[in-house]
């Protein structure tokens, strides 16, 4: 009955939101590792479903058959060492099946060696600063103006009319497709966390510590994420936008940025 009501509600939601980009599940993402992470997630999920079907199945059969109103007489067994050994051993085997691929993916995730591009990401309350180590490009990235105007309490702006409400920035991170991008994360004040679901990486930006992580995007596109470590009142308002472009477009972007920065410096 509970399930049915949930399912019917889900159905309702799904149909009503058919137009929007609906996500019930983790995105498969645009890197090799995000796809691996997705497969791990689905593998463990299906194991859980299988175990659930068995355990809940036995329980439901028992709930239907072994009830006093059906005249069931209680059995008198109280323990069985064989049963205990079996239902200790089987989960151990299942866990091993999960643990091995999980460990393999983890090793790859942690391998930040030989990057093509390194970006130093410094978190502030409540914006991000990006500095491309070798390209001489750096900039702050904050919540975009339309969202800023709409987010205030009783702002009078319908947030549904704002494109990518709370997920748009003034200056996105631009990276080339097919390059290993290493992020060096730190913070200027409190702990923040840098997460883009499609890239399947999340790493804390911690004052006094430089954390490393990496991604290598296979597909051109705009990928959005948010700060995921509570960092004060505007924690919900420091999004991350990564634009993956073709290498030539990236080079052009770097050149214009450099140009702009140089002009800005000389104007001062």
């Amino acid at each position: 009955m509970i399930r049915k009501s949930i399912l019917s509600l889900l159905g309702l939601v799904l149909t009503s939101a058919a137009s929007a980009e609906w996500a019930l599940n983790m995105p498969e993402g645009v890197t090799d590792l995000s796809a691996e992470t997705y497969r791990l997630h689905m593998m463990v999920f299906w194991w859980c479903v299988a175990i659930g079907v068995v355990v809940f199945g036995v329980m439901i059969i028992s709930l239907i058959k072994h009830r006093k109103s059906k005249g069931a007489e209680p059995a008198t067994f109280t323990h069985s060492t064989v049963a205990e050994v079996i239902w200790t051993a089987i989960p151990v085997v299942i866990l091993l099946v999960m643990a091995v691929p999980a460990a393999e993916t983890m090793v790859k995730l942690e391998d930040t060696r030989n990057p093509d591009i390194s970006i130093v990401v410094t978190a502030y309350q409540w914006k991000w600063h990006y500095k491309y180590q070798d390209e001489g490009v750096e900039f702050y990235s904050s919540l975009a103006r339309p969202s800023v105007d709409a987010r205030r309490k009783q702002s009078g702006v319908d947030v549904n009319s704002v494109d990518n409400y709370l997920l748009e920035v003034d200056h996105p991170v631009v990276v080339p497709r097919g390059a290993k991008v290493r992020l060096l994360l730190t913070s200027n004040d409190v702990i923040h966390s840098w997460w883009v679901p499609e890239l399947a990486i999340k790493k804390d930006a911690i004052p006094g510590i430089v954390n490393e992580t990496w991604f290598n995007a296979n597909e051109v596109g705009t990928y959005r994420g948010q700060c995921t470590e509570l960092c004060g009142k505007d924690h919900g308002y420091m999004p991350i936008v990564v634009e993956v472009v073709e290498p030539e477009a990236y080079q052009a972007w770097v050149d214009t940025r450099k140009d702009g920065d140089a002009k800005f410096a000389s104007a001062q």
Partner: protein
Amino acid sequence: MTTAVADAHDAEHHDDHGPTKGYKRWLFSTNHKDIGTMYLIFSLVMFFVGGAMAMVIRSELAIPGLQFVHPEFFNSMTTMHALIMVFGAVMPAFVGLANWMIPLMIGAPDMALPRMNNWSFWILPVAFGILLSTLLMPGGAPAGGWTMYPPLILQTGDAFPFLIFSVHLMGISSIMGSINVIVTIINMRAPDMSLLKMPMFVWTWLITAYLLIAVMPVLAGAVTMLLTDQFFGTSFFLAAGGGDPVMFQHIFWFFGHPEVYIMILPAFGVVSEIIPTFSRKKLFGHDSMVYAASCIAFLSFIVWAHHMFTVGMPLTGQLFFMFATMLIAVPTGVKIFNWVATMWRGAMTFETPMLFSLAFVFLFTIGGFSGLMLAIQPADVQYHDTYFVVAHFHYVLVPGSVFAIMAGAYYWLPKWTGHMYNEKLGKLHFWASTIFVNLTFFPMHFLGLAGMPRRIPDYSTQFTDFNTIASIGAIGFGLSQLLFVAVLLTAKRGEKATDRVWEGSHGLEWTVPSPAPWHTFTTPPKARIANEAFD
């Protein structure tokens, strides 16, 4: 009160004058039943206070955009909701059940240290009075999350030292409570009740009490270091002074993970009492249940850093914490399989305590599944600090711990009041709670997977529908709990309860009259004899 009770009472205590009248009975109480009652009522009040905060949170999140509160107040609400629910509602409820039931279950006249029992209860209203008073302070109530991570928590306003002091007080209360539980269980059991003959509720509480003694001082140490960082110039957690913000997280979660089991092991105990009663069958694998609970308790000390898979730990450390965490699934699985085996070929009936216990087994298992998923480090990188985690821990805490508390309250209520509660109202409470709890927390899995971080007051519009559903569910769940209050208010109107109350119940607590007289077991009973009387 009927004459039977009065007779039993008189027969046992010819020179006893009964409880003092008026407020002194409660303020100066050293009686385990009165103190247990106070713990339970206090817990229920905190459940509604913390619940009211949850209503603020869910109202704000019902649709995107800010409608009701400012972000800083929203953060105060999430922080205070967690602190109040963990330390004010769930933990005191279990201590209340322990106070009432452990002496009755082991045949002891009272808790071993009755004056300390009084003290450990009366500290709590003071602690929460202090914590709640921070809502009125300049700078607002603490808003850095219940995990109190520095450096953010050091940005708290005037509330900061009050937060630390109230956490200290909660810790002192818990430590005294657990010392009492341990001393009572070890020293005051009925003469022929060996350790392995103890009821499961007593066992799980014994293990829980050791966990509490082990980790509450760790929490006290961590928050004291926060205090000295803030006011006395130390730099334990401040990078600028050579400290390490991550060290706080290690210390906090060394407390925090056993704390998770502190909130679930007594729930296992309650459910392990109820399922056999209504299956009319002995608990399957009693001894392996004890070993499984001990195993879980041990493992709880070596898995803390799975809360920190994104802080940048060495690879080997992450591997260790992933494997150790996955191992917890084994003893937890054993417990669930044993409960199912207890029901198997029983003769079940479905009174309210049994319904809550069955929902516990189903829904706690779902929380266990998402826990297993969270243990997988690469996947956890995606889940961490999203609504998937919020869904996970609410599944193990609400239809987990809270449902077990409800089940225990319905199960023992006739023993406490001497009357059967209103079964129809109880069942209504159960069904409303179960439907709404799923409506609230199940969609949060999808929100998290779709990319919604936790602890945000506003969200991008693609998350609207599930948030709206969750908010409707939450308000329904909140209102459903008023039915429980109605059950309590009408608890004495039902028919007179027998001593045994339930057809299938076993154990010493069912050998004393209902309601349990103010003093019980002034001479130790024979546990085996009492049990066999019902076989």
